[in-house]
Every structure is written in C-alpha cells, then in structure tokens.
C-alpha cells in the first residue's frame, strides 16, 4: 500500500491511498454482512475495483458473544485492479471482544482498529476468554491505531426520541459503524440512504432510525477529535461500460437464464437446499418469466434424476449442490454419461469431508468431479475464476452439454458463490450461439448414431412421430442403442464415451498467458484462486522475476496447448485449496515435475503466501 500526502482539507488531513483492506467483525446478530455489503456498494459507486469475502458461522443464530458466533465481512477496494479481498487488514472494526480475539491477528501493525466499547463488558469478555479488558492494555494502542468508540451509546443518543424499544435501537448500531468507516474512507452515503429508503419503505420509524444513526456515525468521524486523518481512494481505471455488483451464485443463475433464452430450450433446475448452493435455486425461482422451472426435490438424488428426466424430455436439465450432494448424485450422473443426455452440474465446493465446513470455501472436489463415479464415467469439468465469470461458465456449460450430449460440471466454490465484484455487464448478443437441433427425420434414425465431429448422438424429443425409441443405463450397442453385453462393443463404447469428452477440447480457445511465454516459473491455477494467484504473480513480475501464470477454465478435457506451455518453463507451481489435485492430474497427464502449494483452511489462498512460495521455488533476489 503506498500512501501519498494530499493537501489537508479543513482541520483533517485527507490522504490518498491506492487500496485498502477492511474487515467488519462482530456477533452473528450485529449485522456485519449487511454492513459489509453496503460498504461494498458505496465503494462500487465511488468507482473502485473491489473483491469481497463474507465469512460467517454455519449456525443460523450462534450464541451471542462467543468466538464461534463471530461473523465478518472483508473487502479490498482500490484505484487499480483488485484481485482478492486482501490478506492483511488496514482496518478492523471489532464490534465485540470475541470479534477482536478472532480477527486481531490479521490486522497490520499500525492498522486502524475501531471497537465498540459498550460491548466490552464482563460478560462478553468472559465469553471471549479475556481475563482482563484488552482495551485497557497499553500495548494494544501502541501496536495499532486504536479508536475506542461507544457506538451503542452514541447510537441510542442519536435516536432517543424515536418510539422504538431498546433492542430495536441497539440493532441499528452497525450503521453507526458503517457511517464512521464511510467517513474515514470518503465513501458516498447515497447508496446506503437509498437502500434504507427502499428496505424500510413500509416502516418509516426504522428508516428514520437507520438514517439518523448512519449520519451520526459519519458526523462523528468528521467532528471527533480522535480521527486526525481520513483517506481517499481514487476511482479505478476500468474498462468502459456499465457495471453492476455480481456474486458467483447469482451469476451462475443468470448464465442459465441467458442460455435458455439464447438456445430457446427450456431449463429445468433440480436442487435440494444445501449451503452454499441454495441461493442458486432461490434466484432461479424468482425468474419464472424466463420459463425456468425449478424443482426443490426430496433429496440430492431426486434433484439430479429429475434434471435427467427433463433432459430426456428435451429440456436442459441442471442440478446444483455442494460436495456432499454431488457424492449422492454420482450414480445419476453416470446414467447421464451412458444415456448420453445433456446435464449441467453445479458444485459449489465447501470444506469437507462429510459435513466439513459448510460455510467455508475449498477446492477439493476436482477429483470427485473427474473420477467420483463407478466405472469409466468421463464428464466435462469447467471452473469459473471470479464471481462474474460464473455467468460465462454456466452459459458455456449448457452449450457444451447440449452440443456433446453429456454431463458438464461447473466447479465453483463458497468464496465465489458469496463473494462479489464489480462486473462489466455483457451484451447478451455477443455470447456464442447455442444451436440445439432436435432430430425429427425418421429416415436412417438410430438412437446412438453419432455425429462424426462431436461423436454426439441425436437428441429426440418424445412426441416426435416415428422416432419412438428406448434408452437406459444398460450397456448399448453403438448406433442401434439396443441392449448389448458383447465384450468388444463394451470396450468400444467405453472408448467412445471418453473420446467424446476429449473432443470437447475443440471448443477450448488458446490459453492466455499472464507474463512471458517462456521463463523460470509457470504458476497454474484453476477456479476461485484466480485473484490470489494473479496478485502474487504480478508482484513477483514487478520484482523482476521470470514468472508467468495461466488459469484453467477447462479441467476436463484440458486445453490442447497446455502440454506445450508447461514445457516452456523450468518449474511449475500449482496453488490449490486442497492437498494437491490438479497438480496430480498435470503430473499424470504431461509427466511434468509440477509442485503444489496447498493450504486447506476454509479460506481463499493468501496472495502473500503464494508470493513466498514463488520466491522459494525460484529464489528470492530481494
């Protein structure tokens, strides 16, 4: 972070920053997610690039004041490209002692620490495991720029005349924090005031209370003696166009809507509620006008099989879940492989195994997507790199599934699902066409007659006269589709299904290399680690190192040019939030001595750590 002093305005110094990393942390009931989202909207309005990281407990109402009940929202915003929500914090807002205890270690020395003193009472200190009030420890104020603010008291004071009860009044204190931090970072309040107006349109008392408290926090920053300076982050240089905030799950849903509109083939989405995938079902259910039909199925298996039934009927069947649900769908996905029907499977990866860490992110389902079914059961696997990229990948998954008549996985993750970024809105007309041809011609029809280019079989809608036929999970004779137990036919079909998936490589554009085309090190990533890897690689490049990175969207099949690219570098590093899955595939596929960088903490990879791993591998010159 570079800081340059700007002329002081009034009594307070205003300093310009390139970027800042802020985390709001408090109790589950403190409204930290909302506070963070509003701060994000304000920053987007200010024209900054940004990335967010919501982090909350799996419990809906975790016991108040506890360490495990702490909820937080982090974002990085800046005047240049922002790839990640940031590693270390410039500013931490800790609404209670538990939040301080959990998050203080991430605050940079000298960082801004803002606490709500009213919450630091004996009860909360006990629950957080503090024997003494940490705010009274002089070391805290020496190490950080500590600001002790009685947010609860000031909040109550600002709205004492409103006819709300004490609890209702107390609930608005998060907007005091928002107002204060908005002042510190010179954020516009308009988007939040708009939001309050809409949200509480039917409840003017709450609208008034939240407005007053927000403004009180802002004014407090301006007038209180304790804040000697505040900051400004210029608008980022971003490609021209119209932007909106986009989360990964919404982008997946909208990608499907776009695919349905473009292909003119209806989509049926089958799902069973599961964190962190449920919001896709909820989003799609709001858009019935797009002829998207959603089935909240009785279980994960029914969700997948209902989608397959829809595909048999001539719709695009889509199912979505997280790792545990994907495990349950395995047999059904195998049916789509052998029946050769389109099926799109969203896997919003989370920490595992078993229930694991439902609200935390992970990238450990790559092997499950590729190999997690009985027998030889190949499927196409794609992975989006950013929240907004989910839109394009969902669309592409439908296009490939329909063209090749096969299952296509989309491996998103908890970080992409809930994280948001400013997203340049595309012109839907520029999306590639999805040209679905249902066979109606009787002459020469066989259910497994293959297209010579794609090896895909004809898709026939039931209701088409003269093309009545039967398919199923038993091995079939190629072309005729009749049941066949012939050994050579089975061997042929196993190879044909694999070859069909391999031919999807025809669809993959040349790989974009971020950096030199040849050099000391290539960093290979996939999925939600794009930001962390890119930031680390650009930092290493700026430090003069011979490093490039590529980020794979296509994981099965792999890009046709990948083998060649890998050999252009002395070393290959593969950072993943798993214990080494893509690295294993690359080693097996290309006999390349790639090494992994693996952290499985339920959190995005820290850019700093990847940077260090790069240095370790090719030697630091610093």
């Amino acid at each position, binding site marked *: 972070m570079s800081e340059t002093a700007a002329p002081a305005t009034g009594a307070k110094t205003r300093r310009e920053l390139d970027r800042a990393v802020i985390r709001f942390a408090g109790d589950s009931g403190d409204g930290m997610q909302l506070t963070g989202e509003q701060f994000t909207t304000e920053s987007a309005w200010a024209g900054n690039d940004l990335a967010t990281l919501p982090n909350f407990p799996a419990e809906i109402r975790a016991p108040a004041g506890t360490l495990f009940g702490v909820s937080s929202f982090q974002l990085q915003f800046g005047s240049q490209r922002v790839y990640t929500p940031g590693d270390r914090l410039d500013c931490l807002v800790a609404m209670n002692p538990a939040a301080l205890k959990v998050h203080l270690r991430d605050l940079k020395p000298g960082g801004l620490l803002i606490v709500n003193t009213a919450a630091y009472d004996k009860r909360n200190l006990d629950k957080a495991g503090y024997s003494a009030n940490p705010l009274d420890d002089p070391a805290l104020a020496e190490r950080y720029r500590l600001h002790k603010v009685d947010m609860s008291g000031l909040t109550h004071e600002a709205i004492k005349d409103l006819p709300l009860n004490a609890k209702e009044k107390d609930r608005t204190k998060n907007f005091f924090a928002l107002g204060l931090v908005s002042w510190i970072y010179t954020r516009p309040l308009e988007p939040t005031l708009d939001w309050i107006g809409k949200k509480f349109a039917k409840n003017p008392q709450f609208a008034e209370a939240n407005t007053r408290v927000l403004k009180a926090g802002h004014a407090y920053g301006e007038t209180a003696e304790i804040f000697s300076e505040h900051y400004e982050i210029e608008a980022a240089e971003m490609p021209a166009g*119209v932007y909106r905030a986009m989360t990964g799950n919404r982008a997946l849903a*909208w990608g499907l809507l776009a695919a349905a509109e473009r292909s003119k083939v209806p989509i049926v989405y089958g799902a069973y509620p599961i964190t962190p995938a449920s919001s896709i079902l909820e989003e799609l259910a709001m858009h*019935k006008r797009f002829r998207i039909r959603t089935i909240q199925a009785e279980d994960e298996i029914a969700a997948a099989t209902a989608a397959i039934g829809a595909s*048999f*009927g001539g719709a695009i069947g889509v199912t979505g879940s997280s790792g545990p649900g994907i495990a349950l769908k395995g047999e059904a996905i195998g049916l789509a492989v052998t029946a050769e029907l389109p099926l799109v499977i969203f896997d919003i990866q989370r920490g595992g195994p078993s229930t694991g860490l439902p609200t935390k992110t992970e990238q450990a389902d790559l092997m499950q997507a590729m190999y997690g079914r009985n027998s030889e059961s190949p499927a196409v696997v794609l992975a989006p790199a950013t929240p907004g990229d989910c839109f394009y990948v969902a669309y592409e998954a439908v296009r490939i599934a329909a063209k090749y008549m096969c299952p296509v996985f989309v491996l998103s993750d908890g970080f992409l699902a809930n994280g948001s970024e400013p997203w340049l809105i595309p012109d839907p007309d520029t999306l590639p066409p999805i040209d679905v041809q249902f066979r109606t011609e009787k002459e020469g029809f066989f259910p497994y007659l293959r297209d010579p280019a794609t090896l895909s079989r004809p898709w026939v809608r039931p209701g088409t006269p003269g093309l009545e036929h039967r398919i199923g999970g038993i091995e079939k004779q190629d072309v005729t589709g009749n049941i066949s137990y012939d050994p050579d036919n089975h061997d042929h079909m196993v190879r044909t299904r694999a070859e069909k998936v391999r031919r999807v490589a025809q669809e993959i554009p040349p790989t974009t290399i971020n950096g030199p085309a040849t050099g000391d090190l290539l960093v290979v990533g996939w999925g939600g680690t794009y930001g962390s890897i890119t930031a680390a690689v650009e930092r290493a490049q700026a430090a003069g190192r011979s490093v490039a990175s590529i980020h794979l969207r296509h994981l099965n099949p792999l890009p046709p040019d990948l083998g060649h690219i890998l050999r252009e570098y002395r070393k290959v590093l593969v950072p993943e939030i798993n214990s080494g899955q893509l690295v294993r595939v690359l080693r097996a596929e290309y006999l390349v001595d790639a090494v992994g960088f693996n952290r499985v903490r339920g959190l995005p990879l820290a850019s700093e750590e990847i940077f260090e791993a790069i240095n370790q591998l090719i030697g630091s010159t610093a």
Partner: protein
Amino acid sequence: MSAQGAGAAATPAPKYTKKDFESDQDVRWCPGCGDYAILSAVQKSMPDLGIPRENIVFISGIGCSSRFPYYMNTYGFHTIHGRAPAIATGLRVARPDLKVFLVTGDGDGLSIGGNHMLHVLRRNVNITILLFNNRIYGLTKGQYSPTSELGKVTKSTPMGSADRPVNPLAFALGCGATFVARTVDRNIAHMDEMLKRAAAHRGTGFLEILQNCNVYNDLAWNVMYDKESRALHELRLEHGKPLLFGPPDARKAVVMDGVIPKVVEAKSVSESALWVHDEHNVNAAKLLADLFAPHFPVPIGVLADTEAPIYEDVMLQQEQRAISERGPGSIAKLLMSGDTWKIG
C-alpha cells in the same frame, strides 16, 4: 410446452392395435413369469388411450419389472434403481404434454426408491404408476423384499426375515395418493379394467399388480390364484356396491364394528348395515387397504379415486401468471436491472 392434459394432441390418434405397441426386442423374462401377462395387458390397453404413440413414455428403475420399457414401442427410459419417480417428475415438469407411465416393483418402488415414491404421490404428479409386487427380489436372485412376509426364509435370511412387510396400498394412501387400486396378474379382465382406470386418472394413478415370480417366490399370491381360495377371499371393490364376497351359498360381508372392520355372514346383516364402497372416501380406503387373508378377504379394484392439485399444473400456472403479469423474461433487461453504474 403446453399446459394441456397428459397426452392430449391436436390431431386425433391413429387407430392402433396391440401390435403397434410391441417393440422389436426379444422379451427376456423367465418363462412363466407373471410379467408376460402384464405386458400383454398393457400393450392391449394402449389403443384405448386414444393418444398418439409418440406422446407416450414408459419410465422405469431397476429390477425385473423395470425391463418393461424395452418391450413397448413407445418412448422409453430404463433408468437407475429406485429413481424412476424423480425422473418421471422431471420429465412431466419439462413436458406436461406427454402421457407418462412408470413401471416399478416392490423393491425398486418401496425399498431403494421408497422416498421418491412418497414424494411423487404427495405431489400428485400426473403419471400412471404400475407397481409389480411379487414379494421377492428376482433380478438379484431371490433375496426377500420389503413386501415379503415376516419370517421369510431366503438366501439372505436363512433363519427368516426380521422386518415386517410394508403394505403398498396403505403406503400410497398414507402418502396422499389420489388414486389407489389393486389387481392380479392372472385376472386378465380385471387387470384390463384397472389399467384403464389408472391411466385415465388425473394425478398420480397408483396400481399395485400382484405378480407371480415362478422362480424365486412361486405362488406367493396363491390365495388369489387357487380357484377355491380365490372364491373364498376375493373382494371385488365396486363404487356404490356393498362389500360382499365369498361363494353364493356362503356370502360374507365386511361391516364396521365401531371403527374396526369385521367379517360377518351376509345374511345376518340388514341392507342398511352393509358397508357400501365409496371410492371418494379416503378414510374408508385406508381401512380397506389393511384387509388381507386369512382373516379378511383380499380387496381388488379401486380403493380410492379423489382429486387434488397436480404439481406440474400448479408450476405452469405460476409461470403463466408471472408472464402475464410482467411479460416474458429478457436477459438484456435483467442484466441492466437494479443498481448499475457507468464507467468511462
């Protein structure tokens, strides 16, 4: 996609014969299997549906019965074990214009697929379910099934099974099924009639067919096969008719003793005290579902025929309402909706 009733078509169906519904595949059930009679009856019932052949789909799971679609010259999908109800639900949601039959067995439908059976029935998806109940696992060579009697000795239960059987009719009624009926594979005329009734029902039509597995569980339903036994036990349910059964010289009646069904000599009760069958009375159907030999007669026929909202109809109505209120969706408009900002 249209919201028309299942199988409805703009043009009337051609005049079909049974032969039009026979596929070119060799039928591979064991010689003497009860499935042959059911297949023949189903093929024979098809022309009467008045639905173009291309609008008919047979869906099945896994098991002997689930080979059924291969032998029907219609659209067909032989899927995975137990999941046919979910496949059929997805198909109907995508294509409410199709007439969908689901063929399953006691293991496929009530064991591995019991959960899906529960939900397809409560949703009242507009399909016809044919459940072949032979009280045994045939395809896996003779293990006991969820409808096998307690103490059933099989290869997997050499000292007898320890779990009590599920009653398919009671299960279906408990799940809120709107049409529940039973027939017997060896009673062709009755089977014909029940197939017609089940297929004509709007909503889920659930038909249990007592079926013989002559290899692994021969004569499990002998109570309904043996001429003498059948004469003593068969209770033909007919709407508006009293519950009378047994040979003419020894007619018996099922009457209510409080809330408990009881068998009495027919001539010992007055006409007004007879239990008159009412297909629209689900509570009565639930009592009938539990009757079985030897202490009671075995009811065959339609136990219940009622009406309820159909899952995919409700879904389509919502879709049409959404479109009529706000117009069809447009991705270009959606992308630009809500908070957006311009750069450059």
